[in-house]
């Protein structure tokens, strides 16, 4: 069987890619994609540790299922906000949404 550390390594790389997308991309939709990548990396870790350490305790899979729910809620609200901002300002670049800036 594949050793656990290989899954963890892939998940770590995916998480760092997501973190870079969140920090560096200019388009808000791309930032949301980065968040999705990070959540997926977390899910790989949860299911990986569940399989290799506690395959009879459902905590790992249950937490992964809750991450799905949070991801769906986050995507729906985030994209609604992006579309609403685009309608008002014709832009989806977070740097330009600065109405509240002092």
């Amino acid at each position: 069987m594949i050793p656990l550390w290989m899954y963890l390594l892939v998940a770590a790389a995916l998480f760092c890619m997501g973190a870079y997308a969140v920090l560096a991309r200019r388009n808000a939709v791309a930032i949301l994609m980065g968040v999705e990548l990070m959540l997926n990396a977390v899910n790989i870790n949860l299911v990986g540790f569940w399989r290799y350490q506690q395959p009879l305790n459902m905590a790992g899979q249950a937490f992964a299922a809750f991450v799905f729910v949070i991801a769906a809620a986050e995507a729906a609200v985030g994209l609604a906000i992006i579309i609403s901002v685009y309608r008002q300002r014709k832009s989806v670049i977070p740097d330009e949404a600065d109405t509240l800036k002092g």
Partner: protein
Amino acid sequence: MLELNVQTLAFFVFALFVLGGGLGVITTRNLVHGTLYLILSLFGVAGFFVLLSAPFLAVVQVLVYIGAIAILIVFAVMLTRSMTSLHEVVNRQWVLSAIVAVLLFVMLTVTIILPVWGQDGSLAGQPVSEVVATTTDLGKALVDGNQYVLPFEVASLLLTAAMIGAIVIARDDE
């Protein structure tokens, strides 16, 4: 070390999907292509779930992530058409962001690799149990009063609130 069988081969193919898709998401200028790369990456993660004997999560990954969230992102990309291919992909702090991401990856790699080839090698050759909980067990755990029924109900409430909130925010009120 690793014996070459179907499972190992599938792992590397899926790892290629996951990492290649992720790399595509962070580098492409055209966000439509970026979304397709995201779908590739999500599909690779679904493959990982199959290899980790969590078939229910793999199906949910395909249905919810690829079938719902990725399609939602496609719609958002289409509705913000003039922003799909920005001239500048990254903001001013991208160098710093890249350094932070690479440092984070190095740090995580060290903490993952050290226990494997460290003094005790505890994680390396640990035998993996063949007995695995099934989807039935997951379903029972999610509605069991002593386990996850309360978080389950809270999650459904959160999802309802998020859907209503999304409709209210995105509605065009003239």
